[in-house]
């Protein structure tokens, strides 16, 4: 029992509720929301160290014993992801201070981000599959409001489609939970895992596992990403950055958790299917990223490529591939936030997202240009930046599992991603400077600092890979051996 585990969920929840009461005190909103996200990061670091020493940390809510109550579980993967979430949201909040605008701030922007954070952290930490659904909904309802906040025509049009797709996938999630409960009679993930191991993953359990895969694929944008490019490019840059960095990763986390803890007995069917889906979505995402000439479109298609790559590492299901996947999720959360914020700043300064209409920005904004360049290189996997380590490990993992085609697609699409981002860089930052400082639509004051932090972090994650590697490796070990998780949750209780 460790009360620390619940803090990443209740800190943003309570702060958000308090802020909703004082809805006109914008300074208080800024201060408290930043404090909340920073304190989540601190808690996550404490948790990481405890997990490294003592194994997964558990909290049985209301002191109900494991299979009956709701368990919160912080294993290494969850702790790492909560830490990254805290850091990324802190940077996005700093960016929002200067860019989101008073009107949206007054309409509860900060409380909504905190509620979103509640749902995201809850999804990472919960050990109960119905609670996972509830946390998903908390996150999604906050995202529904964030995506339509401000009410421009484009936002209203896209948010309706976004809500509809997510509503349907939530229903499917409930359906699959109902089937699972009907067959196995439990909702606790550790208990479910023990029961599936006992009964064997045969018969109807396979279609149910595929149904779970479909649900999480919609949320993660794995192959079923038709809704993603439109809806992620509708809201302002900072909201797009939070979505791109967090929401799809929560879906990817759910796939990784469910298929490493519960349905891991038949990788021939489930994991090779995940591999095929990952390969196709990498290819389609890369084609989309290369084809468009619009900053927002190119960036959103890059989200799809990286989700494919993360799950390609997971599909290989060996130590190297899983380590690569975990490392790449962390890297991708940081770099996606970086590149979305940098791209958003370009749009903010020039007032357009069409890259053919922009040129020569490097004269006016050298720092912005170089930070965008760092993000590009990191995303493509150039050493010593953080993407390199992740890509090497994922490719190694897929090769070891004999999925040569999957590793090949990963490398090919990395090249295409590099091309698509260099296209933005060359068109926007090189060439004749047509813009004068007076013609700019907005100033970059206060916007460059958070982008700078993220750029520094991707350097650190690449150079300090050695130090971080031990934690990531521990997370991958936990995924390969569900016994650690089950033992920590159910303890010495005989499994009823």
């Amino acid at each position, binding site marked *: 029992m460790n009360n620390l585990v619940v803090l990443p969920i209740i800190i943003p929840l309570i702060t958000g509720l308090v802020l909703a009461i004082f809805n006109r005190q914008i300074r208080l909103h800024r201060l408290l929301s930043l404090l909340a996200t920073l304190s989540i990061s601190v808690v996550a670091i404490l948790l990481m160290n405890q997990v490294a020493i003592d194994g997964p940390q558990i909290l049985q809510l209301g002191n109900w014993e494991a299979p009956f109550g709701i368990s919160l579980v912080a294993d290494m993967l969850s702790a790492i992801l909560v830490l990254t979430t805290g850091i990324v949201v802190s940077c996005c909040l700093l960016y929002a201070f200067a860019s989101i605008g008073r009107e949206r701030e007054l309409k509860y922007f900060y409380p909504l981000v905190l509620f979103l954070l509640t749902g995201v952290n809850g999804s990472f930490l919960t050990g109960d599959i*119905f609670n996972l659904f*509830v946390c998903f*909904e908390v996150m999604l*309802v906050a995202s*529904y*409001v964030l995506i*339509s906040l401000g*009410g421009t*025509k*484009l936002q*209203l*049009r896209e*948010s*309706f*489609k976004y*809500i*509809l797709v997510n*509503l*349907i996938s*939530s*229903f499917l999630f*409930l*359906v699959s*939970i*109902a*089937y699972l*409960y*009907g067959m196995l009679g439990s*909702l606790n993930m550790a208990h479910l895992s023990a029961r599936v191991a006992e009964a064997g993953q045969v018969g109807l359990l396979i279609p149910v596992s595929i149904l779970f895969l479909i649900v999480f694929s919609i949320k993660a944008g794995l192959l079923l990403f038709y809704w993603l490019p*439109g809806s992620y490019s509708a809201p302002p840059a900072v909201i797009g950055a939070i979505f791109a960095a967090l929401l799809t990763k929560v879906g990817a986390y759910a796939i990784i958790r469910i298929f490493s803890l519960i349905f891991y007995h038949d990788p021939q069917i489930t994991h090779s299917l995940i591999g095929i889906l990952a390969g196709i979505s990498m290819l389609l995402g890369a084609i989309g990223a290369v084809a468009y000439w619009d900053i927002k479109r190119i960036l959103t298609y890059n989200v799809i490529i990286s989700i494919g790559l993360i799950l390609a590492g997971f599909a290989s299901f060996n130590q190297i591939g899983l380590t690569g996947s975990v490392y790449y999720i962390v890297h991708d959360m940081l770099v996606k936030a970086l590149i979305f914020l940098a791209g958003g700043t370009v749009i903010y300064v020039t007032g357009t*997202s069409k890259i053919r209409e922009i040129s020569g920005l490097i004269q006016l904004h050298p720092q912005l240009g170089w930070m965008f360049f760092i993000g590009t290189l990191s995303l493509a996997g150039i050493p010593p930046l953080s993407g390199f380590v992740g890509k090497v490990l994922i490719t190694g993992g897929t090769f070891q599992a004999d999925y040569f085609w999957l590793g090949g697609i990963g490398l090919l699409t990395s090249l295409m991603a590099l091309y698509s981002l260099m296209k933005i860089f060359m068109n926007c930052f090189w060439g004749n400077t047509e813009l004068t400082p007076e013609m700019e639509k907005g100033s970059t004051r206060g916007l460059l600092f958070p982008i700078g932090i993220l750029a520094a972090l991707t350097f650190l994650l690449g150079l300090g890979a050695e130090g971080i590697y031990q934690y990531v490796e521990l997370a991958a070990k936990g995924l390969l051996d569900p016994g650690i998780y089950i033992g920590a949750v159910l303890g010495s209780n005989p499994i009823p």
Partner: protein
Amino acid sequence: METLMSILVGLLFAIGTYLILSKRILRIILGTSIIGYAVNLLILTMGGLKTGAPPILGQEALSFTDPLPQALLLTAIVINFATTALILVLSYRAYQELGTDDMEELRGKEDE
């Protein structure tokens, strides 16, 4: 009884899917809420309908009804209620702003 419920769930799913495939926003929203009811009934049925006495301490019976599906159901209903309210408000606002409730006219990728 379970068979009858299963058929009902299937029927509601079919109606909901049919409504979602239509063009008007309001019909789509009604479709989602009908699918919501279908899902709720499914959860209830999967837990087993009335298999024994109510699960209260002090009851003397050989078997008890599983109370968990009902707890899940309540949560699902509340969430469904909230999202339906949100999407109704949003669609009304979208109708005011965009002047149409036809999904055919809401497609397209160009920004205004």
